[in-house]
């Protein structure tokens, strides 16, 4: 329904947009879909405005060429510069889109993983409770059975010990069986996970149209200018006064975590 990024938005799509209703307990449309659609419309408008601006320039350029009846060959230097600006702008927008898509992808994956983790934890807790209950009830039955059997001596303490032994033996056996099954499932999950990560990484690499040479920080860029030669920084002798504000002002409280 929602066009994928990169595809063009058509008037038809806007007319026939069908947004799913929000989750139970919320009014209106599903927020995520509405936001995604708005982002798409916004991107389309930006593209259109840029195209409009460049077409307008093209018209101007051609008009000037007609008026300048003289030299119609050769590109004038300012035209070349504007063209270069346009090429760089397009490349920048492409890079922006890749970064935004990657960020969006990472947001979805993380949110999904978080949800999955909560589910797994809840399920594990329920499972553990169930296993404990089952082990306890089976062991209790075993203990009762052992206590009821006629022993070599009608000694009460002997009977209690036999019952306790039967209880513990059954309890640990049930528990061990469940634990083994659980660990095996877990191990299989981890292997599946490893496998799917390998294949998705390979796929993601294959999808990149060209390498991004500028993403990796070059050593020169990441290294700060060497500190000026001179005496070492003075020891931190005077802590700031807590009762009076510092001499420098405290600007923008805006926080962008």
């Amino acid at each position: 329904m929602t066009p994928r990024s990169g595809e063009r938005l058509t008037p038809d799509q806007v007319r026939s947009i069908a947004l799913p209703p929000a989750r139970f307990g919320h009014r209106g449309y599903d927020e995520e879909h509405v936001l995604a659609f708005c982002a798409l419309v916004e991107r389309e408008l930006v593209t259109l405005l840029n195209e409009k601006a460049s077409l307008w320039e093209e018209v101007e350029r051609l008009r000037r060429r007609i008026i300048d009846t003289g030299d119609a060959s050769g590109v004038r230097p300012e035209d070349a510069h504007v063209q270069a600006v346009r090429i760089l702008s397009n490349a920048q927008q492409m890079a922006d889109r890749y970064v935004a898509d990657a960020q969006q992808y990472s947001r979805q994956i993380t949110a999904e993983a978080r949800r999955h983790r909560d589910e797994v934890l809840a399920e594990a807790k329920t499972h553990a409770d169930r296993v404990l209950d089952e082990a306890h009830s089976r062991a209790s039955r075993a203990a009762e059975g052992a206590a009821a059997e006629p022993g070599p001596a009608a000694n009460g303490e002997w009977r209690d010990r036999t019952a306790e032994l039967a209880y513990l033996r059954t309890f640990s056996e049930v528990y061990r069986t469940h634990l083994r099954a659980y660990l095996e499932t877990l191990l299989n999950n981890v292997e599946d996970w490893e496998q799917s990560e390998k294949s998705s990484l390979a796929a993601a690499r294959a999808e990149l149209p060209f390498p991004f040479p500028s993403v990796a920080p070059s050593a020169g860029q990441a290294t700060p200018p060497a500190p000026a030669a001179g005496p070492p920084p003075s020891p931190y002798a005077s802590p700031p006064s807590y009762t009076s504000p510092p001499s420098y002002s405290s600007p923008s409280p805006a926080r962008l975590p």
Partner: protein
Amino acid sequence: MHGDAVPLFFYSDLFLRHPETRELFPVSMAAQRDRLVHALARVVSEAGHLDAITGYLQDLGREHRKFGAIDGHYPAVGASLLATLAHFNGAAWTPELAADWQAAYGRVAQVMTEAAAEDAGNRPAWWEATVVAHELRRFDIATFRVAITEPMLYLPGQSVSVEAPERPRIWRFYSMANAPRDDLTMDFHIRMIDGGALSIVLTRGLAVGSRLRIGAPVGTLTYRPEPGRDVLLVAGSTGLAPLKAIAEQISLLPDPPRVHLFFGARTADGLYDLAGLEKMAAGCPWLTVVPAVSHEPGFPGERGLLHEVLARSGNWREHDVYASGPTPMVEATVNQLTALGVPQGRIHVEDFGWSEP
């Protein structure tokens, strides 16, 4: 009305004329273009009386030091700004208009460079920091300690912007979780934001020895002792960091007031620093730590959202209140305390700008 096309043209023009300026910016320029448009709109709307925005421009000039901006960049930016305006105004662009803009930009650049130069006399453009300890407390929450080489004067409760070499030119603000120390180490508490560019590096990508850059301290969530007034600290998730720093500052006072620190999270594993706080409280008879959890029915302590727990836990009308954490938590806390009769002037907040999933 050219929308994004104007800043797009401006930056492309700047990078083509002065390629060396490109590396002052992040890979993605989308957010940067928005910022430029906002800053320009603010300057243009006040162009008649520059005095009104002098403070803003000075902040901007100081802030640009950590981005690596130098005096020589200012004329280059001015030239590209004028070229952009000429391009989009077409025939309407006259030499007189150009001269007016040139003069206005010159004044703006002067205020910014002067503020930057004055700042350069007082402190470095940024601090180089080395990670000396890093601990993943939950899969998405980490605490780490860095050591810096030059002293930094800051007040407990303030924050600094942080940049990692893995994400060049992406700066994000984080609060120090300790009062200034003689050994020049600082603690940070980081929560991974889904899709966040830097937070994922700081939670899961750091190790002892990793290098970071740290900008100058900012922020107004700072503590001023008021005689006879007790203190209420309300922390949601990693909003604890600045309040822990304030608690540490109070512990250094000769006669500390009574302090209640409420520390809230959705589940018990979100109370990532409770052990540290309880250890601190054990040595400080004036400090009471109250953990609260909202989404875990089996939790043995206080259950509910922080503002609900506050409402049933005492009378805060004579307290100085400091609250910090996710946006909805900070808003609910302020509303609740105001409704309970705490004067607005005594409530100090830091909004971390995200909501906890």
